[in-house]
């Protein structure tokens, strides 16, 4: 069981936002009060706040719009983020910006977060050039922990090549996070993959249970 408050961090391009959106939707099946906070003030494209209507349809409250349109570069955080962090009745998912730069935003809330029952996941995509081996991933863990003033509590293998993800990608990523897990003692919380691949692996291999991802952030014409 994950903690009430879940922070999603990682290298940019690891698939944090897709994972966060899918994870929040999964949580909405068991919780009536799910909030997804978009803390990404680094990148103005492909942010979870673009999917407010979708999230609403699952009863999820999006926190992150500063009352202006979605495509603005404004390093401003709405006050409701405190609510998502502190409200003990809220199942809260925080979609953090990529890299240590994106995670730095968390430092401002770190004292409040430490008082909560929280998890902080590192999403890993072994197909990203900068997170292809154990040492590189551990470097990210250290840098994100330093920037956020918080500790990572679990790993998410989200190794993918978008719609052309193969089973081998997922297995290779799993081996990578296993290596990281052995060295850091961080548990592997999830292996995630697009639905088709997740179903294939889940039907043939009982050792890992793959969390199915629907690509909500990718347009139909994208690969």
């Amino acid at each position, binding site marked *: 069981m994950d903690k009430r408050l879940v922070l999603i961090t990682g290298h940019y391009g690891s698939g944090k936002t897709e994972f966060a959106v899918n994870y929040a939707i999964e949580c909405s099946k068991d919780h009536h009060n799910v909030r997804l906070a978009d803390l990404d003030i680094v990148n*103005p*494209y492909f942010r979870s706040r673009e999917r407010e209507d979708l999230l609403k349809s699952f009863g999820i409250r999006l926190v992150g719009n500063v009352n202006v349109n979605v495509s*603005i*570069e404004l390093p401003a955080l709405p006050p409701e983020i405190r609510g998502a962090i502190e409200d003990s009745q809220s199942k809260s998912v925080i979609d953090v910006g990529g890299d240590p730069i994106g995670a730095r935003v968390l430092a401002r809330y770190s004292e409040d977060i430490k008082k909560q029952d929280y998890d902080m996941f590192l999403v890993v995509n072994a*197909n990203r*050039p900068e997170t292809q081996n154990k040492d590189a991933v551990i470097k990210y863990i250290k840098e994100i922990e330093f920037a956020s003033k918080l500790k990572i509590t679990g790993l998410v293998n989200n190794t993918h*090549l978008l719609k052309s993800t193969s089973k081998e990608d997922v297995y290779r990523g799993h081996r990578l996070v296993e290596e990281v897990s052995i060295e850091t003692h961080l548990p592997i919380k999830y292996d995630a993959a697009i639905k088709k691949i997740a179903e294939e692996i889940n039907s043939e291999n009982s050792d890992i249970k793959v969390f199915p991802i629907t690509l909500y952030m990718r347009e139909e014409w994208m690969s």
Partner: protein
Amino acid sequence: MAKVLMKGNEAVGAAAIKAGCRYFFGYPITPQNEVPEYMSKELPKVGGVFLQAESEVAAINMVYGAAGAGARVMTSSSSPGISLKQEGISYIAGAELPCVIVNMMRGGPGLGSIQAAQADYFQATRGGGNGDYRHIVYAPASIQETVDIMMEAFDIADIYRIPVMILGDGMIGQMMEAVEFKEYVPRELPEKDWATSGTKEMKSPRVVNSLYLEPELLQEHNVNLEKKHKIIEEKEVRYEATGIEDAEVVCVAYGTTARVAKNAIDDLAKEGIKVGLIRPITLWPFPHEAFDKINPQAKGLLTIEMSMGQMIDDVKIASNGRWPVAFEGKTGGLVPSSVDVVNAVKKMIGGAK
């Protein structure tokens, strides 16, 4: 090499370094910020120089200087920043120097928006700078194609001593896709016997300049430039054309909108409607020859752009009155959907309600 997942802007930087680019001068602007970010991190590792200039005007003039000294150099920006660079681009073209310029287009005019657009077609193909100059414009439609073109762009610039622009849009810059870096095989390049790389007092100084005070000399210079442009028009045209010989309608689109068009064309094929696609990969030189292969009985051409319709003029010139030319597009940072394209095609063939 195995495929990796990269953001378009990162891939631009990685490909440039692989192609031997060692100098980057630029200024941040969304949605191309990951290009300078990547270069600032990676160029020092290979002995190169990244320099954030005080403005786009300064950056393009640094490119002018480095190119004049014979360096492999590039800059990148997005629409309003590229506008500021126009004077420098004209000078570089006038002085016949090679360089690569990346424009990840955003909404305009003016500051516009930070979302993706294709509204700089006029500027890129007609020039925002002064004088009888041209520069090559590539419009990749995927991250893989962006990488492949980036690798070649520096050689093309060297061969013709001309600025080469990579014209992407915010989507191409920001989108993640799987890419493979193929081994870069350099072309045979002419010696840079014009570069101001020092005389060591052994030879007469070389001069890089775009100033010709005598009208006859300037005219001669322009005639020579035009000869070069004609050779580029003959040799460097690139495009993708599919299903145009027996099409009822032919879509003409580049970059991101070509991706949308392909989806729409597949959907229309399922309904038995034959639609072809011409995707210019070079916007200048424009692929006029592709249009000669279009079914003469086609009902019309549909230009699809993320603008109010800028390439449509070139499509009309290429059509040369043979087919009616219609337009479908979105602007302001919006991307047309395949449904928009399907409906526009049906309207042209008389099938829409």
